[in-house]
């Protein structure tokens, strides 16, 4: 990608994130966040959730791939923000579920592109006001 290719309004190639219960457990181990709402339906339901939900930080981290795949080098990311607006429930089956990620360039200034991300699951927005900034290569 050349800096001259980047301008406000460009849509990045969309990204679908598939995940199953096994992926939730894998992230719990990798991140060391063992809150039981991420592995126990019983504990998740006690807090009013529909069942086991994936970590908001998984959704945030996995969604960023739409940006890092596009710029190529993840070292170019200088900032990233997201609000966790709705839980992503992950059923205990072989199919799992899918989060759809979309992104577009909303600003280019001083060699830095600002990219707005959207992540949807089951008709709900799961990341709010998500923005990443990347240094242009």
């Amino acid at each position, binding site marked *: 990608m050349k800096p001259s290719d980047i301008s406000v309004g460009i849509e990045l190639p969309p990204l679908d*994130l*598939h*995940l199953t219960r096994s*992926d939730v457990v*894998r*992230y719990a*181990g*990798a*991140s*060391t*966040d063992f809150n039981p709402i991420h592995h126990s339906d019983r504990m998740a339901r006690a807090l009013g959730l529909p069942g086991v939900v994936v970590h*908001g*930080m*998984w959704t*945030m*981290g*996995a969604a*960023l*791939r739409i940006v*890092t*795949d596009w710029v190529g*080098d*993840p*070292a170019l*990311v*200088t*900032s*990233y*923000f*997201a*609000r*966790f607006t709705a839980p992503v429930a992950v059923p205990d089956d072989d199919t799992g579920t899918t989060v759809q990620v979309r992104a577009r360039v909303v600003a280019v200034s001083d060699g830095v592109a600002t990219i707005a991300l959207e992540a949807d699951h089951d008709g709900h927005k799961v990341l*709010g*006001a998500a923005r990443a900034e990347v240094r242009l290569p």
Partner: protein
Amino acid sequence: MPITSDHVGRSYPATPAYRVSRAKIAEFATALGDPNPAYFDETSPIAPPTFAAVIAAQAWGAVFEDPELGLALHRTIHADQRFDIVRPLREGDDVVARLTIEKVRNRGNTDMVTIAVALSTAEGEELGTATSQLIHTRPQEER
């Protein structure tokens, strides 16, 4: 006494150094489902940008263990997250984390607390900051 804006600016000692390893970077990137070669480089892998949360979370313990604040992890929701990155974490970095309470708002029986965790190498090189807003619900007897 709940946490109040009087606690803004309070900071805690640095966590013990966390050694970033090739195996942990690979494990974390795999858990995100991200095969980017930068994370699996044979000579000098970097960590995904959100890996900083793994180290920042170790610094969070300070606020939940501070008896003056009355915060409990099981009554806390992670509302938002920001990363400001000076440079990516790399294999072999020894990273320390320093937590500062940046903002507190009390509304009804809810405390909205913004905490900033500054990451640096043990030698003092700045690596970035992980800032989180936590929403805490006070227990019945403190309402």
